[in-house]
């Protein structure tokens, strides 16, 4: 490998050698180069070398999964920065919030970004779930990835909930008081769960410390792990869902013999770029079958290539665009709207009404009818049904299309669930006043 540079002065060649040792490929100009670039770059190798055109259709995915992920990245970065100035202590936390406003450079802006990205993530993860359901994308072989997605939604909500306490203002204190009381209605272990969460019988220093540890360490770690599995499963389940007919081979493209794939040289090629060169004869014949080397029950070896395009640059450009739009959105909102900060905690005087964050107001509205059924019973049933969706609905028709006619019943049921929850949230947010009595926002 080093023969071309041997004759040159190592010092002169140093920058180039270092560069080449990091980036094995120059910017690709051939299909082989595009494939190698995707393989040999750590960040790019998470992607397939080739991706189906349908996965790139913005009107199909709306980019919601990517937006969720990028919002999470924004949250990690801004969250770590905020940790430099935050102290999880009941006597200091609120003062630190004021410091963010007053003295810390960009403090208020970082807090805005963190708060709005968190609200955005809750909303976008939920919308992502709606997209996956309404396009029937949870059908086999993607059942388990749907289950992972539901778990990710729950962890997102819990992350948001634990972060809500940290400013230690009135909004935080009473939302967490109400929220953890809902947990205590759980059968059998309810009181224990509340005690474990709070580390005490009421919301205080112990609760603040516990929520802090959950918020900055435990839950992000769990979320990252599940996100990694979620992404990995997308690859292993054969990419994003699409209509069956989109896989059909056009008549003018000869379907290659599969035997050529499973033979020796091609397999070696996948592991090292050096061997890739040796395998070139095979590649020139069919260089697009590289991802087909993974032989699972779901990878569509013979069908993928014709309607797919190289991930470099098509997929990466699309991801870059979604990333820029996401960052731009968060920056814009953070410029114009400040994250709310109420009075410091006053244990004696609950605000009236004491309201949870907006995404829990549907829950709080339910709770005002019956604490057990509204706060524990119905939510548990809803989550169980969501988890079981791909195992209950076994029809295979209508995958990969929005609002497929074949899925009218399933989609109607799901939309009913969505609409009921959204209406409850709207009622809880706008139509409830002091003592949780009905008020008109106009």
């Amino acid at each position, binding site marked *: 490998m080093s023969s071309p540079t041997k004759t040159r002065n190592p010092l002169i060649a140093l920058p180039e050698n270092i560069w080449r040792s990091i980036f094995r490929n120059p910017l690709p100009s051939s299909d082989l180069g595009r494939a190698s670039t995707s393989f040999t770059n750590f960040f790019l190798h998470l992607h397939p070398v080739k991706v189906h055109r349908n996965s790139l259709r913005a009107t199909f995915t709306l980019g919601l999964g990517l937006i969720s992920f990028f919002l999470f990245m924004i949250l990690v970065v801004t969250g770590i920065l905020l940790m430099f100035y935050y102290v999880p202590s009941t006597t200091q936390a609120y003062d630190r919030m004021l410091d963010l406003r007053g003295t810390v450079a960009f403090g208020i802006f970082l807090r805005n970004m963190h708060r709005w990205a968190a609200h955005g993530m809750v909303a976008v993860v939920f919308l992502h779930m709606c997209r996956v359901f309404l396009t029937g994308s949870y059908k086999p072989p993607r059942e388990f990835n749907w289950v992972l997605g539901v778990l990710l939604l729950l962890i997102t909500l819990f992350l948001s909930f634990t972060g809500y306490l940290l400013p230690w203002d009135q909004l935080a204190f*009473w939302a967490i*008081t*109400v929220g*953890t*009381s*809902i947990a205590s209605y759980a059968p059998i272990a309810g009181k*224990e769960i509340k*005690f*474990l969460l709070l*580390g*005490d*019988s*009421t919301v*205080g*220093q*112990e609760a603040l410390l516990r929520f802090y540890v959950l918020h900055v360490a435990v839950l992000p770690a769990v979320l990252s792990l599940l996100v990694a599995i979620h992404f990995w499963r997308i690859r292993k389940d054969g990419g994003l869902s699409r209509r069956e007919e989109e896989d059909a081979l056009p008549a003018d493209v000869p379907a290659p013999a599969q035997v050529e794939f499973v033979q020796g040289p091609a397999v070696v090629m996948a592991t090292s770029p050096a061997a890739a060169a040796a395998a070139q004869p095979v590649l020139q014949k069919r260089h697009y079958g590289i991802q087909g080397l993974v032989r699972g029950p779901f990878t569509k070896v013979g069908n993928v290539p014709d309607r797919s395009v190289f991930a470099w640059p098509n997929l990466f450009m699309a991801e870059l665009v979604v990333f820029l739009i996401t960052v731009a959105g968060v920056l814009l909102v953070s410029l114009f709207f400040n994250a709310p900060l109420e009075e410091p905690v006053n*244990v*004696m005087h*609950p605000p*009236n*009404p*004491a309201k949870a964050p907006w995404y829990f107001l549907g829950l709080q509205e339910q*709770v*005002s*009818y*019956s*604490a*057990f059924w509204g706060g524990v019973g119905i939510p548990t049933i809803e989550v169980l049904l969501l988890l079981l969706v791909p195992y209950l609905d076994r029809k295979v028709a209508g995958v990969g299309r929005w609002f497929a006619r074949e899925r009218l019943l399933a989609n109607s049921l799901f939309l009913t669930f969505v609409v009921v929850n959204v209406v409850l949230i709207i009622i809880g947010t706008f139509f409830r006043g*002091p*003592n*949780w*009595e009905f008020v008109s926002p106009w």
Partner: protein
Amino acid sequence: MKTPAKPEIEEGGDAMTRRRLLSWLSGFGLFGSLIITVLSNLIFIKPRATYGQPNRFSIGKPEDFPSGARVSLDARRVCIVRDGDKIAAISTTCTHLGCIVAVSETGFSCPCHGSRYDQDGNVTGGPAPRALPWYRVSLAPNGDIEVDKDTEIEAGNYLRV
């Protein structure tokens, strides 16, 4: 990769070979260790001592509470009720979702979700599922009244002073 041919093991044989027994025992041991790990973590995060407000505390002499007084100690989350020579402590934590109820003309009312209670803490309206609990009240040797929020007693049980 092909699995190496297993010698000596009869396919489908139910007989307990040494290998099978050892596998079972190791599996059992590993699974048991996992359960013990989870349990010890649960025990670890359940605090043995709490650093917040103590649940047993003294509230002063009986003379501090004249007959007919209904004094709400919001920081302690109890209401001290004195009726003649009878004294009692009623929780002011709403049984619905944990807000602090306010003393009102007719008893107690919650500012959060509109629960209402009568003078003895029984629910008279709103979403509250249970009556406000009464706590045990006792006289300490130094003459102070002591409230024990860990011990709930039946409503109507007064301490005579």
